[in-house]
């Protein structure tokens, strides 16, 4: 009794001061209860305000109970009680309103989410988006996934559509949204899958005025595969940017350094709608944007344009042309007479190295490994044979049969990731894996401008889906997969890239030298320090 009294005396004596503490403790308990209730409600979809009100009533009763349980000090506690009853009520009111607000907000979000779920088709995907959404809600520190790999989340799609709308001028939508085609295999449903039959230019006006014509041409060439290959795409992109800068004129009251970057953004969105940007293109764009924003404001337009054109030329010269010269110099040291070199697909850099080595009178022969549906190896084969190099051509299914003959494997790369993984054409990781099994050294040739700060350990999270109709083949006049879309359980998957772990790569030959795969983050750090 005394204890309880004492405690209560304590609670009452430290009334004005401590009552707040008590209340906050109770508040905290209440809030904890509420949170639990809300989590339950999300699954049940019941109105939390009801629960809230119930708990409010219960919580109102709670402080009044200890207040009334003090029979000893009637006089003192009465006013205190009064004040106690008032202040908890008063403190409750703002607390109630805050909690009520929070509850209302949560209720609103729940109903919105429920309606979205109703619209969505896949139940699995909604379940996956739920946990994605709730952690975002409770911990705003969580990093958001980039929009281009959230194709199955309608909220992200809406955001992308809004972003494209915001980039509009005079009520004309500059960058039309390209619609996905065909059934996507569920593991890759977060990626875009476009068809070559629906070109991105369907909604672009002829003549292209809002998007610069050379960018439209470039986008078309990307989507039709006329310009393919990391280096080629970057060079073509920079060429198109040169023409854009040439035709650009600063509007009045605007600064070139800021306006030109804004002008380039919708072009880049358009290009990524045609075909997702490669890592090398991303780095090139970053570099250009930095150069543009570094143009001093007092610089005249002509001078600024000239400077930018020079900068683009020097970027191409340094990072692509001279880099390939340096890489071939290092690589030729690794090619000895009598070598049997295996290459995969058509990498412009590897072809260049082999042609240079042949010119330097090295005696070697090449085995070109190819894979469907792109069959890029044929082009590599043509170039090597035209040079005079002895070549053998196999499909990737014959890899293990031919590896015993091979002394070295040269692979090209689309990008080198920060954790040492090599992102390259799909099939490269298989080559590296089998080569490792046969103890054949694997050398990856990659320029430093393709080094990327991304980290990836699997080929699922970030990849590219090509046109599924490319997999359809007609033999003897029969096309069995002609109506693949009508078969509900059939999906055609045409992946473009895959990642190779650094354990399978023995050496990376870059323009900075020959480095192990794990030194990529060092190179990135050094590059950043330089800039």
């Amino acid at each position, binding site marked *: 009794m005394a204890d309880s009294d004492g405690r209560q005396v304590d609670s009452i004596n430290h009334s004005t001061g401590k009552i707040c503490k008590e209340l906050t403790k109770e508040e905290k308990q209440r809030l904890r209860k509420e949170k639990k209730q809300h989590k339950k409600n999300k699954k049940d979809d019941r109105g939390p305000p009801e629960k809230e009100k119930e708990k409010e009533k219960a919580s109102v009763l709670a402080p009044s109970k200890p207040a009334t349980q003090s029979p000893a000090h009637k006089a003192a506690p009465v006013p205190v009680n009064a004040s106690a009853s008032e202040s908890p009520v008063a403190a409750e009111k703002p607390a109630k309103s805050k909690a009520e607000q929070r509850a209302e907000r949560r209720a609103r979000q729940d109903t919105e989410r429920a309606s979205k779920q109703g619209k969505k088709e896949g139940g699995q995907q909604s379940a996956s988006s739920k946990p994605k959404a709730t952690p975002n809600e409770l911990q705003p520190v969580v990093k958001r996934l980039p929009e281009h790999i959230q194709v199955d989340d309608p909220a992200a799609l809406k955001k992308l559509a809004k972003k494209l709308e915001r980039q509009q001028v005079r009520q004309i939508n500059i960058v039309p949204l390209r619609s996905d085609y065909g059934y996507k295999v569920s593991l890759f449903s977060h990626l875009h899958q476009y068809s070559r039959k629906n*070109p991105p*230019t*369907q909604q*672009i*006006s*002829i*003549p*292209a*005025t809002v998007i610069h*014509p050379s960018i*439209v*041409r470039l986008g*078309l*060439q990307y989507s*039709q*595969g*006329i*310009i*393919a*290959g990391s*280096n*080629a*795409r970057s*060079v*073509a992109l*920079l*060429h198109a940017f*040169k*023409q854009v800068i040439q035709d650009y004129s600063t509007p009045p009251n605007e600064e070139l350094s800021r306006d030109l970057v804004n002008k380039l953004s919708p072009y880049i969105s358009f290009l990524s709608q045609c075909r997702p940007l490669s890592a090398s293109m991303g780095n090139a764009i970053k570099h250009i944007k930095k150069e543009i924003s570094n143009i001093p404001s007092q610089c005249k337009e002509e001078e600024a344009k000239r400077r930018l054109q020079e900068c683009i*030329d020097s970027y*191409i010269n340094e990072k692509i*042309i001279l880099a390939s010269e340096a890489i071939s110099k290092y690589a030729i040291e690794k090619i000895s007479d009598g070598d049997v070199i295996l290459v995969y*697909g*058509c990498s*412009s850099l590897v072809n260049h190295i082999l042609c240079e080595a042949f010119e330097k009178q090295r005696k070697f022969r090449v085995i070109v490994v190819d894979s469907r549906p792109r069959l*890029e190896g*044929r*082009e*590599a084969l*043509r170039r090597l*044979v*035209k040079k005079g190099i002895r070549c053998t051509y196999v499909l990737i299914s014959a890899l293990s049969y031919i590896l015993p003959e091979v002394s070295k494997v040269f692979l090209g790369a689309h990008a080198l990731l920060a954790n040492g993984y090599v992102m390259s054409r799909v099939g490269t990781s298989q080559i590296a894996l089998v080569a490792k099994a046969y103890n054949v050294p694997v050398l990856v040739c990659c320029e430093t401008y393709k080094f990327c700060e991304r980290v990836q350990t699997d080929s699922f999270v970030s990849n590219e889906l090509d046109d599924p109709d490319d997999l359809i083949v007609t033999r003897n006049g029969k096309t069995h997969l002609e109506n693949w879309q009508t078969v509900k359980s059939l999906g055609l998957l045409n992946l473009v890239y895959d990642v190779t772990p650094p354990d399978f790569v023995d050496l990376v030959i870059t323009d900075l030298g020959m480095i192990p795969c794990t030194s990529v983050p060092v190179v990135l750090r050094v590059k950043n320090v330089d800039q």
Partner: protein
Amino acid sequence: MELQAVLMAAGGGSRMMDLTYNTPKPLLPVGNRPLIWYPPNLLERVGFEEVIVITTKEVQKTLSTDQRLKTDVKMRLDVVCIQEEADMGTADALRHIQQKIKTDILVVSCDLITDVALHEVVDLFRAHSATLSMLMSKVHEFTETVPGQKGKKKAGEQRDFVGVDITGKRLLFMANEADLDEGLVLRKSIMRKHPRMLIKTGLLDAHLYCLKRSVVDFLVHNKSVTSIRGELVPYLVRKQFSKSLNSQNATEDSEKNHKQQDTHHNLELLSTSKDEALLQLARERSCWNDHRGDMSEAYHGGKLRCYVHIMEEGMCYRVNTLAAYIEANRVVPKLFEDPPIHPAAVVSERSLVGSDSIIGPLCQISDRTSIKRSNVGTSTTIKEKVKITNSIIMNGVTIEEGCNIQGSVICNNAVIGRGADIKYCLVGSGQRVEPEAERTNEVIVGSDQLMEI
């Protein structure tokens, strides 16, 4: 700017003189709109903002006064007049407006009615940096009976032989039957580069061409080329495989030696600036080739490329013969969502206007008339008890009571007397058909027109 549109509207309509001796071809009504309205409509829908129209003075006058044209067509029409008597070919006309042309051009003929997705043609032009990109369509057989036609007239048709590669996009060969003496001659250079070629004959050339700027410069230097379709296009298609084109050294030598050949090489006069070097680098590094099986690079290293888009489905008509004119009139009203009966027309309640007929503004249709599957133009007066089926009535026509008109074409300002019975006839402009006349399968034109040949 990427493309400039040029509309060729100075043609005479030489294959349907009965219709065009009084009305210039661009002003012939099709679906109650002048023929010249259709190409700008197509261009406008795609996004063009202005068009250079090459036409005669008469047409220009009508263009500026026609109210309906002014309201319907929102783009800017830059009209260039040429003398009718000068008898200019289409290439001559391009040479005439050479000053206005600053970019690549899209040439379209005024008699083209189509609903093609223009981006298909222009995409070929853009993606492959083609010199020429054109549109062709499968020929439709005309099913309607043509008035004034006596017997089948298949003999006069000259076939076009069009050779395309296996993708169906690259144009390898084009010749008209009239130009071939004994047989089709294919150069070995074509066969070596494209061993698989599809030769098609049932194609209609839509006369829609995307041409590079350098072609216009070439025309300026070569004054002998008069017609785009007749001379320029076959020349460009042939030049793709010309020996002198593919080797740089050869061009340099011949430029020094022959002044004449200078003009031919204007075609490949690409500015060898740094930008071209960049494009070349991109192409070298790209692992794409347009053909496979031989050792040459993409496009066989050729700089001149011609592409064609062949329409499989969809509507594409060239209104240059009477049969095409009738067919177009039949099909075109379905394209547009205009109300079949213009609000300004006065149609009596006791008349029967079929759902597939269209009535133009300011018409007066009296009681007990029946109009089925017909087009009636503006300001036409149709009196009582008239039966019109399957016919085309142009503007300002007066049809008296009790007439029966079937499968006919009645031109502007004609008058059909009462009780006339007209079957499968063509009544020329301003003609009078006497009352109680019975005409079948005749062409009624004025006697003064009979003198023109």
